[in-house]
């Protein structure tokens, strides 16, 4: 059946039209918070959109012997006895290039409910099957986040699904903003799904996007804590559907789902209200299936890639939570924000030892792979050495050198909040200190050198060209370090 107009723009007037069109009616029999039990609607199907007499919208969750179980999607009050009409339509979102730079609700309307796209290029159901293996490609292209420790130690690839996990207030959203900034500048379509976040947090994100002038490559799909649980539940689905649309237009996309633990809690609330059997931590049995299906929609495809960064919150650094471990098992690695490192003043508080990237390395150049191997083993060695130093042992000259290099590497990997550093200058500077540049300088002098070199890279095209060409011409990290060390005076004069 052809729809009258996009489902999200339906009003009370359309109720009567759908009633005539489907020839079926239902009556609200029972309301349990956001779940409504409707008597009637004999041919209703699951995930079909239904309309209430007052213009409210709902989604059929399940069919029972006596009732149709409907999840409320709007804030309009529903009363017992109210009439309900079927629409014979699955929930679809309007899609088109006009979405760029907009903030929308999961139904595809503006937050206040008005139309965002008057004539959508396409309408797609928000819950679709992930693409099969034949349409997929290997993750082969790198994805720059602009955060040095990630780009050098846990690098990502386009089409990768990387979980961002950590305690509250450890800088997860800041990292995501840095990634958006870095990618939006490179022309990637960035979709930020704010899942039931606080309004003040959402405002901060909008402000950041506006201030950095990246609105034209950014879309926000937003629900706030006060929205109906049904709407919050749909947020990541809409974000992924938009990403799929842009992927099919040949544009790489980055989807951020902030955060999936809130999404799981919201789904738990809905299912418990609907009297589904609770499983571990009271989550329903299909929570793994739901999240895995959603993650599976991202990946590297023939037309373009969808990179997905789901977020999960942990409590007191405990990564063994049900949802967190589920998400870890269905993603291609995770970036762990460590509360201890945060409390020690390390920014970003990413723990390189507990972070994992499974397909990210294969997407990097041989130089980055070589660098990553050496840097990772050095960081582990440095950590061991620091533990050893606690015993007050006397250190040899070579150990002193290692500790000195470690201090300079740590200074390099540290990064101010919301600062984005191009990966090439980060590699160049790391190779420089690896080769012994500024060996005898203090921490502050080293930081000043990094700062100055980064500014030169960003503002002097000649210098940027020199850095890029040097990196292109040198596939080995050790060779690069020696080469830069030899030219130290010319480069860092």
């Amino acid at each position: 059946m052809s729809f009258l107009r996009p489902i999200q723009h339906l009003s009370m007037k359309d109720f009567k039209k759908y009633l005539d069109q489907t020839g079926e009616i239902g009556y609200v029999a029972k309301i349990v918070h956001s779940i409504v039990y409707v008597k009637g609607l004999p041919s209703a199907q699951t995930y079909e959109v239904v309309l209430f007499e007052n213009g409210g919208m709902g989604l059929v969750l399940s069919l029972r012997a006596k009732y149709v179980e409907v999840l409320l999607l709007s804030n309009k009050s529903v009363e017992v006895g109210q009439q309900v009409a079927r629409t014979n339509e699955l929930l679809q979102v309007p899609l088109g290039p006009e979405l760029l730079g907009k903030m929308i609700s999961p139904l595809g309307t503006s937050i206040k409910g008005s139309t965002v796209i008057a004539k959508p290029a396409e309408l797609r159901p928000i819950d679709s099957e992930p693409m099969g293996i034949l349409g997929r490609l290997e993750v082969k292209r790198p994805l720059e986040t602009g955060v040095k420790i990630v780009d050098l130690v846990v690098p990502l690839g386009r089409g990768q699904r990387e979980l961002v996990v950590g305690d509250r207030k450890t800088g997860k959203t800041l990292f995501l903003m840095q990634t958006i900034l870095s990618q939006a500048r490179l022309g990637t379509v960035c979709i930020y799904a704010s899942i039931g976040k606080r309004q003040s947090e959402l405002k901060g994100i909008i402000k950041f996007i506006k201030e950095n002038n990246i609105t034209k490559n950014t879309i926000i799909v937003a629900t706030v804590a006060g929205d109906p649980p049904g709407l919050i539940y749909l947020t990541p689905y809409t974000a992924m559907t938009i990403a799929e649309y842009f992927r099919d237009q040949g544009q790489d996309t980055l989807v951020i789902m902030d955060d999936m633990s809130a999404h799981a809690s919201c789904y738990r609330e809905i299912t418990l209200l609907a009297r589904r059997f609770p499983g571990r931590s009271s989550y329903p049995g299909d929570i793994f299936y739901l999240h895995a299906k959603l993650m599976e929609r991202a990946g590297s495809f023939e037309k373009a890639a969808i990179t997905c960064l789901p977020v999960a919150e942990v409590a007191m650094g405990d990564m063994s939570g049900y949802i967190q471990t589920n998400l870890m098992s269905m993603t291609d690695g995770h970036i762990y924000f460590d509360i201890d490192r945060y409390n020690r003043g390390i920014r970003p508080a990413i723990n390189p030892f507990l972070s994992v990237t499974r397909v990210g390395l294969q997407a990097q150049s041989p130089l980055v792979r070589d660098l990553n191997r050496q840097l990772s083993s050095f960081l582990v060695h440095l950590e061991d050495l620091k533990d050893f130093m606690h015993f007050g042992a006397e250190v040899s000259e070579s150990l002193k050198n290692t500790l000195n290099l470690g201090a300079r590497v740590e200074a390099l990997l540290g990064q101010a909040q919301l600062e984005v550093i191009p990966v090439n200058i980060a590699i160049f500077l790391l190779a420089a200190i690896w080769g012994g540049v500024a060996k005898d300088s203090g921490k502050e002098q080293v930081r000043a050198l990094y700062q100055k070199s980064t500014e030169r890279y960003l503002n002097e095209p000649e210098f940027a060209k020199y850095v890029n060409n040097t990196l292109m011409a040198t596939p080995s990290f050790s060779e690069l370090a020696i080469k830069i060390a030899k030219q130290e005076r010319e480069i860092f004069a």
Partner: protein
Amino acid sequence: MYSDILSQIHTKYDSDALLLGLDAVKKAIYSKDGDLFAAVNQNISANLAALLSQKLAANSPDKYIEGLEMELKNMKLIKLGLAFMPTQKTVDSLFEWINTNLGEGFIVDIMVKPEILGGALIDCEGKYFDASLVKLVDEFFKTNSTFINERL
């Protein structure tokens, strides 16, 4: 067992009134000084009271009332939206038509909706049919809009 009583129930109003009356009669069964038949005469409409008294005398009263209540609750409801309040005669003839064409076990709930001008809005067991005059008028204006505009 219940058909002679149920055949007297035509509308939702009748059904609700009988259910209410049965509730009062039930109380009399379990009351120490309660007179069951007096309660029937007092709470059940005159056309059903004699019949119900006979049935209660012939059966176990509590079980009979329980069964009758169940039957009443299981009756299929036909909601009718009409532009006018029908007379009892109209309701009776309507019910006769339903009995002949659809069978027994139906009750009618009539709502007055003057905005439909004429005809009826019918809904039964989730099925909905708009047979109103206002729909025909709307369709007429939609299909003949060019013709009407030319004449105006």
